[in-house]
């Protein structure tokens, strides 16, 4: 990913073009299907992290219940496929059901902001976990559900690693473009407004609640899409997907990369997926490592990795050209106000 400073448009564009070209040709130079699959994982988690970032970064609303929405999409599709429905029906239904669940989550959680919002989403996420785990007659409990086939749009089979990678890449690019459009749209701007100055926005006549509600639905939509990618990737879903741990990992992707940036969650997803795969192949103690990373990032790099690296880059660039580094603009974080 590129860490070019915002001021140097050409550098940034060249870097983005190179990155995109690399992503597009990835299966050819990587070769090994194991690594292609890890790249698919990174992209699908990046979609999930981008979706969560809409709320965490731009809305200042930290949700710990998104694993619940992710799992609702996965379970709905898996159950419908199990019942003999086609992929198209199952996927559309999964997105609709997840959007409905997002609306319920939003109505309940948006009664509060800040820590109240977090606690309520956490509890709602646990309800989904409870259904997945305990309502065994519906969800097959701990044993989970298998999905036997991947869809084959226009007769193209998605069974091979490269084919699935390109599907994920396509979805990822669409997600990224809609995120860019969302952030630049009036709705995105007013969402940031409600994050920084909810009272002023209210006084200006904006419906703060409704703006947040729409942001939640937008986030829920992309969470559903990433949930679908996830079940088609794994062809299996079980209750731990809905657990707090998944929400926490995704939140760590958003935060370690840097909230309220579009590159941050993507970088965070890449870092976490790679680390999870590397760590898990050496030791069983992924949770321990995850917890320690959490503590270290919070204690030493609270701004996240991408803003941190960008700051260092800018400082280095300015020093190289013999200028005094510009003073860091005071940024209002996602949790400020």
């Amino acid at each position, binding site marked *: 990913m590129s860490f070019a400073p915002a001021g140097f448009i050409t550098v940034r564009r060249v870097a983005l073009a190179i990155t995109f070209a690399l992503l597009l040709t990835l299966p050819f130079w990587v070769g090994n299907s194991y690594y292609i699959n890890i790249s698919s994982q990174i992209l699908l988690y990046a979609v999930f992290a981008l979706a969560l970032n809409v709320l965490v970064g731009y809305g200042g609303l*930290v949700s*710990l219940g998104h694993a619940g929405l992710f799992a609702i999409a996965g379970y709905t599709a898996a159950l419908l496929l199990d019942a003999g429905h086609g992929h198209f029906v199952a996927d559309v239904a999964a997105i609709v059901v997840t959007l409905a669940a997002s609306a319920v989550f939003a109505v*309940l959680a948006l*009664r*509060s902001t*800040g*820590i109240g919002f*977090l*606690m*309520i989403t*956490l*509890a*709602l996420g*646990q*309800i989904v976990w*409870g*259904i997945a*785990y*305990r*309502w*065994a*007659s*519906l969800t097959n409990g701990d044993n989970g559900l298998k999905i036997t086939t991947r869809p084959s749009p226009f007769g193209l089979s998605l069974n091979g690693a490269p084919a699935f990678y390109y599907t994920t890449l396509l979805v990822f690019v669409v997600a990224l473009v809609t995120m860019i459009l969302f952030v630049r749209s009036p709705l995105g701007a007013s969402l940031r407004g409600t994050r920084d100055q909810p009272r002023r926005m209210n006084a200006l006549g904006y419906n703060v609640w409704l703006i947040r509600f729409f942001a939640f639905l937008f986030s829920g939509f992309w969470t559903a899409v990433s949930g679908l990618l996830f079940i088609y990737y794994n062809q299996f879903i079980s209750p731990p997907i809905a*657990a*707090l*741990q998944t929400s*926490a990992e995704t*939140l*760590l992707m958003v*935060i370690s990369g840097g909230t309220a940036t579009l590159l941050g969650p993507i970088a965070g997803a890449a870092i976490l997926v790679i680390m999870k795969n590397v760590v898990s192949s050496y030791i069983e*103690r992924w*949770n*321990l490592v*995850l*917890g*320690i*990373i*959490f*503590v270290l*990032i*919070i*204690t030493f790099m*609270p701004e996240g990795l991408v803003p941190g690296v960008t700051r260092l880059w800018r400082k280095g660039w300015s020093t190289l050209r013999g200028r005094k580094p510009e003073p860091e603009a005071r940024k209002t974080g*996602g*949790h400020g106000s």
Partner: protein
Amino acid sequence: MLRYIGFEEARLLAISSFAYGGLLFLLSSGFSLIFGLMRIPNLMHGSFFMLGAYFGVSMLEKGLTTDALKAIPKIGGAFNFLPSFTILPPNFFLIAIISGLLVAGIGALVERYLLRRLNGQELPQVLLTLGLSFVIADLCLMIWTGDPWQPATPAELRGVVQFGTLFFPLYRVAIIGIAVVIAVALWLMVDWTRLGAMIRAGVDDPQIARVCGIKVSQLFTLVFALGAGLAAFGGVVGAPYLSVYPGLDADMLPLALIVVILGGTGSLLGALVGSFLIGLLYNFGQAMVPDLSYVILFLPMLLVLVLRPQGLFGRSIP
């Protein structure tokens, strides 16, 4: 889906419900104090409960001796150089208290050296405690393995107790008694002692309280340690009943959360009522609608959120 239960079963369920509620109170009263008074969203509260329970089961095996250290799985070997030395015989409640004190010490360290640096920043505090809870969960899995541990009920509390013509398991009645005693003690402390007044002053206006000579910072460490200790004490007391297993922390944390949202943050009475309510729902739900028992637990919380967001006994904060 719905299973009907008879009177005899309902009676036993009721006593179990109140015992479970008592345990929930030990867990959530500390959570409520920390969250309500100090505004720290402590997501490692379930970990304190589990850690206390694990300390308890290890000490219960051998009593309070150096042998207990050696009996800790995996890392116990490091203590083999110590001579066998007994401080106290294995007494259940003494061990519960010592376990509570140990975890209170850990809580104090976490508050003092990690949470204190993030004073007033709620999101980083959430993430820090969440991260620590993962670390503790994995360390416990490493040390005490994945098998569940269930200590025996203390000998003097086995058997049944008779009220009129009805018999109740003695240990469950004892848990209810302990919870009520602690509830009263906490209420007296917060509302009627100088210490409680100082804590309330420190919460309402830390700067003026400091000017008046109250050491607010130390008080907050104390409250955090107290909450952690109570949870750990509850963990040991609950161990013969719930047993101790990996994932106990993740099972208990949402319960503490719903109790506190239900009862109102910072309200001890709310925590008490909420605990018994959730205890009843949990036990009757499991007997009557086993598939949905976990989901039913959250219904009163959702109702309260919609109808009375500050909780049943919470002050509405402007």
